[in-house]
C-alpha cells in the first residue's frame, strides 16, 4: 500500500516536472464562434512550433465583457498574460499607465527583431503611444469598405461610385431598378471616425488624443461632417439611403436579401457575405467627397489588439513576446487573413498572400488592405479618446434622432460635441 502511494507520488512528480518545463501563457479574447476556432488553431500552431511555451486561449464574451473581466482580474492580481482589447477601449487600457507592457518593448526586450515599418501604414500607429511606439499588438484589424451587388448595378446600368458626388448621380437609377441604393452598419466607425481619416480631417485636439487625455476635445462639430449628415438625411428622405437602426446585422441583412444595392461594412465581413449571399458581389474603397478633398487618404483600422499585461514573471513575458513575434510572421498573418477576412497587418504577409494567387480568385479580399496602404497623412493614424464607448453611444443616439426627424443636424452635432467633451473631461480626471 505504502509502496503504491510512493510510486504514484513519484509518477505525479515526474509528470508535473515535465509540464513545468513549458511556461503557461493565458490569452483572454473576445472572438466567438468560427473566429474563436481560428484563434484556437493559431494557439495550436504556436504550441506545436516550439517547446518552451504553451498558450491557452480563453473566450471571455464580447469586447466589453472581456475588458471588464480583465479590469476585475487586474485589481485582484489575477490578470491573464495577454488580453484582446477593442478600438474604443484602447484609451482605457493604454491610459492606465503601468497596466500593460508596450508590445514593442516586450518584443525587443526578448531579443527579437521589431520594426514598425514592417506594418502597413493604416495599422502601424493605431495602438501606438504619442511617440509612435507600438503599445498594443494589432490583431484582428479591418477597415470600412463599400460592398456592392454586381447584378443590381448592372441592372441599373451604373458603375460603383468612387466619390459621394458620383453616388448622387447613380442613386436615382438604382431606385428606378427597384433597389435601396445604400445602407451602412456602423455610423460612428464608418461615417464619423473614418469620415475624418478618409478626408484627412483632425478628429480631436492633442494630436487626435494621442498626446494624453488631459484637455483632449473632440472636433466632431465641423462643417464637413455636418454637410455629410445633411446629405444622408436628404438621401434617406429620397429613398436613396436605408437606415435600419444602430445594430450591425439589421443593416447588413437587407443587402444580403438583395434589397439594398450597396452596403458599407467591414473588410472582414467578406467571408460572412460569401456564405450568406446568392448573388455576385464585389467591393471597392470607401467613397469620399471630392468637394472636401480631391486627394483622399488611407482610412484607419477598427477591430482589436492584443495587450501584454504587466505583473508577470520575465519567463512568461518572454513567451508573450514569442507569441507576438509568431503572430506578426508572414505565414501566420496569411493564414489569419484568409481564414477570417481580417487584413494582414504586415507588408510581408500581404505580399505573401498576393503571391499565392488568392486575390485573383477573390479580389474583394484585397480591397481593405489596398485602402489601408493608401497615402499616410497627419490625421489618419487613429484617435485616442477615453470613455469612447459612451461617446459612440451619444453619436448613435443623435444620428438615430436625425434620421427619425427628431432633431436637426446642427443641434445633433452640438450635443455630440458637448457631451463628448464632458465625457473626455471626466475620463481625464480618472487618469490622474
Amino acid at each position, binding site marked *: 500500500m505504502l509502496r503504491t502511494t510512493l510510486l504514484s507520488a513519484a509518477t505525479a512528480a515526474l509528470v508535473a516536472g515535465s509540464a513545468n518545463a513549458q511556461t503557461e501563457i493565458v490569452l483572454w479574447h473576445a472572438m466567438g464562434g468560427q473566429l474563436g476556432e481560428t484563434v484556437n488553431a493559431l494557439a495550436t500552431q504556436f504550441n506545436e512550433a516550439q517547446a518552451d511555451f504553451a498558450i491557452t486561449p480563453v473566450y471571455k464574451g464580447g469586447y*466589453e465583457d472581456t475588458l471588464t473581466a480583465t*479590469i476585475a482580474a487586474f485589481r485582484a492580481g489575477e490578470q491573464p498574460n495577454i488580453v484582446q482589447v477593442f478600438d474604443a477601449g484602447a484609451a482605457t487600457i493604454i491610459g492606465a499607465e503601468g497596466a500593460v507592457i508596450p508590445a514593442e518593448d516586450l518584443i525587443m526586450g526578448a531579443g527579437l527583431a521589431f520594426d514598425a515599418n514592417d506594418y502597413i501604414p493604416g495599422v502601424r500607429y493605431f495602438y501606438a503611444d504619442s511617440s509612435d511606439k507600438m503599445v498594443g499588438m494589432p490583431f484582428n484589424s479591418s477597415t470600412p469598405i463599400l460592398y456592392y451587388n454586381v447584378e443590381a448595378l448592372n441592372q441599373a446600368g451604373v458603375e460603383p461610385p468612387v466619390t459621394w458626388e458620383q453616388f448622387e448621380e447613380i442613386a436615382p437609377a438604382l431606385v428606378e431598378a427597384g433597389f435601396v441604393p445604400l445602407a451602412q452598419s456602423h455610423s460612428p466607425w464608418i461615417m464619423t471616425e473614418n469620415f475624418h481619416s478618409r478626408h484627412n480631417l483632425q478628429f480631436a485636439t492633442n494630436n487626435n488624443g494621442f498626446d494624453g487625455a488631459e484637455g483632449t476635445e473632440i472636433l466632431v462639430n465641423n462643417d464637413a461632417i455636418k454637410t455629410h449628415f445633411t446629405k444622408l438625411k436628404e438621401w434617406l428622405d429620397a429613398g436613396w439611403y436605408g437606415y435600419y437602426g444602430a445594430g450591425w446585422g439589421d443593416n447588413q441583412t437587407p443587402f444580403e436579401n438583395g434589397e439594398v444595392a450597396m452596403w458599407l461594412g467591414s473588410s472582414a465581413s467578406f467571408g460572412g457575405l460569401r456564405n450568406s449571399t446568392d448573388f455576385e458581389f464585389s467591393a471597392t474603397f470607401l467613397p469620399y467627397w471630392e468637394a472636401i478633398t480631391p486627394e483622399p487618404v488611407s482610412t484607419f483600422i477598427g477591430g482589436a489588439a492584443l495587450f501584454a499585461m504587466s505583473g508577470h514573471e520575465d519567463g512568461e513575458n518572454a513567451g508573450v513576446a514569442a507569441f507576438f513575434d509568431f503572430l506578426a510572421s508572414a505565414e501566420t498573418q496569411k493564414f489569419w487573413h484568409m481564414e477570417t477576412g481580417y487584413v494582414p497587418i504586415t507588408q510581408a504577409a500581404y505580399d505573401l498572400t498576393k503571391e499565392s494567387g488568392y486575390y485573383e480568385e477573390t479580389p474583394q479580399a484585397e480591397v481593405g488592405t489596398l485602402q489601408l496602404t493608401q497615402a499616410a497623412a497627419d490625421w489618419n493614424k487613429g484617435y485616442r479618446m477615453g470613455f469612447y464607448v459612451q461617446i459612440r453611444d451619444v453619436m448613435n443616439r443623435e444620428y438615430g434622432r436625425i434620421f427619425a426627424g427628431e432633431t436637426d443636424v446642427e443641434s445633433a452635432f452640438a450635443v455630440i460635441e458637448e457631451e463628448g467633451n464632458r465625457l473626455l473631461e471626466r475620463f481625464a480626471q480618472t487618469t490622474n
Partner: protein
Amino acid sequence: MEKAQFTSPWLPYLLLAPQMIIIAIFFLWPAAEAIRASFFLEDPFFGTATFVGLQNYSDAFAASDYQRTAWFTFVFVVLVSLISLGIGMMLAVSADRVLRGKGSYKTLLMWVYAIAPPVAGLIGVMLFDQHIGPLVEFVAYFGWDLQVGVDYWDTGFAMIVVATWKQVPYCFIFFLSGLQSIPTSVKEASAIDCRSETRRFWTITFPLLAPTTFFLLILNITYAMFETFGMIDQIVKDQPGNSPVTLVYKVFRDGFRGNDIGGSSAQSVILMILVLALTVAQFRLIERRIHYT
C-alpha cells in the same frame, strides 16, 4: 396567550445572524461602496480615485437624455406592472373556473416563467426582428410599419410586450393560489345573493385578492425597474442608439460597458433613493386600504 421567552438574551441575535450577515454582505456593503464610489472618478485598473464631490450627480442629471430615459422608465414600469397584473389576474380567474383539464391549463400558463430572461429576450428579438419577425409581418397587414431599433416607440412597444409576457405567469401563479385560498363558503354565499358573476368578482373576489395584488404590484415594479436590463440589451442588440432605455440599463451600460465606475455609481444611488421613496409611499398610501384576513 402563552408567552415564549428566550433563555439567553444572545440567542435571538445568534439565530438572526445568518440573515443579517447575508444582508450586510450582499446589500449593505455594496450599497455603501456605491455611495462612496459616486463621489469619486477612478481609474478602473488601479482604483486610484480623484474626489469630485457631487460632480458625478450633476453630470448624470445634465446628460441631455436623462429626462427622456427617466420618462420612458416611468411609462415602462407603470405599463409593465399594471398590464401583467391585469392579464395575470384575468388568466387566473379563468383557469380557476375551468373544471376539466385544469392541470394542463395551469402548467401551460406557468411554463413561460421557467424561461431564463436572456432566452426570453432572444425570443422577443426574433419575434420583433425588422426583417424576419413574424409579429412585424403580422402588424404590417394592418399598415403598421413596425421597426424595432429605428422608431423610438416601436422599440419601446417591443420591450413592454416582452417584459410583460415574462411577468404574466408569475402574477398568474400568485393570483391562482390567492383565489384558491378564498373560502368556498364565502363564494357560495355570494352566489346565492348575486347572480351577476362580474359583480361578484368586483365586490367579493377582488377585495379578497387585494393583499396578493399589493404584493405583486411591488414585485412587478421592482422587476420592471431592475430585472429587465438584460432583455433590453438584447432587444437593442447591444447598441442602444436612439432606442428607449431604462435608468438601470444606463447604469449597466456606463458601468459595465463604459467602465465609468463613478458615474454609474451615482446613477445607481439616485435610483436607490427613488425606490426607497416609492416603497415608503406605497406602504403608507396603499397598504392602509388593504385588509389581511
